[in-house]
């Protein structure tokens, strides 16, 4: 197993754990956290491929990771605001009991 493969395996494992959390948790905030973990796994891939790429003088991988982190931050802010608004409306963040989009 080479170095790049080790990083890719680690990020796949992180992605799978985040996916498992997003699919199985009942708390809406923890589902959002699972999605953040999946985004972080993608960032690890960007940096690992950049590091093991042909020329690290090109900084494309680093720039992509920076932009990806910014988009993830915006997503987290809007997602948590939606969860707070949904809680204010239905007084729960339990996803098994939130089963209607219409108020």
């Amino acid at each position, binding site marked *: 197993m*080479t*170095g*790049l*493969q080790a*990083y*890719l*395996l*680690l990020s*796949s*494992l*992180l*992605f*799978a*754990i*985040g996916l*498992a959390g*997003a*699919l*199985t*948790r*009942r*708390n809406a*905030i*923890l589902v*959002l*956290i699972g999605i*953040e*973990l999946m985004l*972080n796994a993608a*960032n*690890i891939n960007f*940096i690992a491929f*950049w*590091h*093991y*790429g*042909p*020329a*690290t003088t090109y*900084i494309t991988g*680093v*720039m992509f*990771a*920076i*932009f990806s*982190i*910014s988009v*993830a*931050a*915006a997503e*987290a*802010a*809007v997602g*948590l*605001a939606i969860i*707070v608004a949904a*809680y*204010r409306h239905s*007084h729960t*963040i339990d996803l098994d009991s939130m089963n209607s989009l219409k108020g």
Partner: protein
Amino acid sequence: MSISFLIIAVLIVGSTAAAMGLRNPIHCVLTLSITFGGIAALFLQLGAEFVGLTQIMVYVGAVAILAVFAIMMTQSRRGLMLGTFSRNALVGLLTAVAVFSVLGWAVLSQPVAGVTAAVSPVSVQQIGSSLMHEYVLPLELIGLLLTAALIGAIVIAMERKEDTE
């Protein structure tokens, strides 16, 4: 593959599993910040210092704190301990296991050796100048996106007067 990578990998996987498996949401967020710190250490190890420090500032400093705030604001009076996992948790778990098997098989079966060239660390000056030259349009778009997300988050989470009356 070095010893430090193994230590960081074990730390990341353990704290991620704890973050997705623990019962108390506050404990989940605490272990999640360990995960984010471990990922930042991974970035530092790979020679991307700026991304590692950005990871610490954005994730440990902002996203984890925001998640703690959201948990405290949505703490219902009868308690959050309704049950940790959803009714059809087994299906989700099997899906995740299947996804990991496919990804792991794809990674291990391909000869992705990579080039182990000497890493030239990226200076912050280099990043700044390319943000201002080649990547100026994405930079402006990200600024617009963050502004829109900020305003949108405030508008969505704001308590409206007519709702409370």
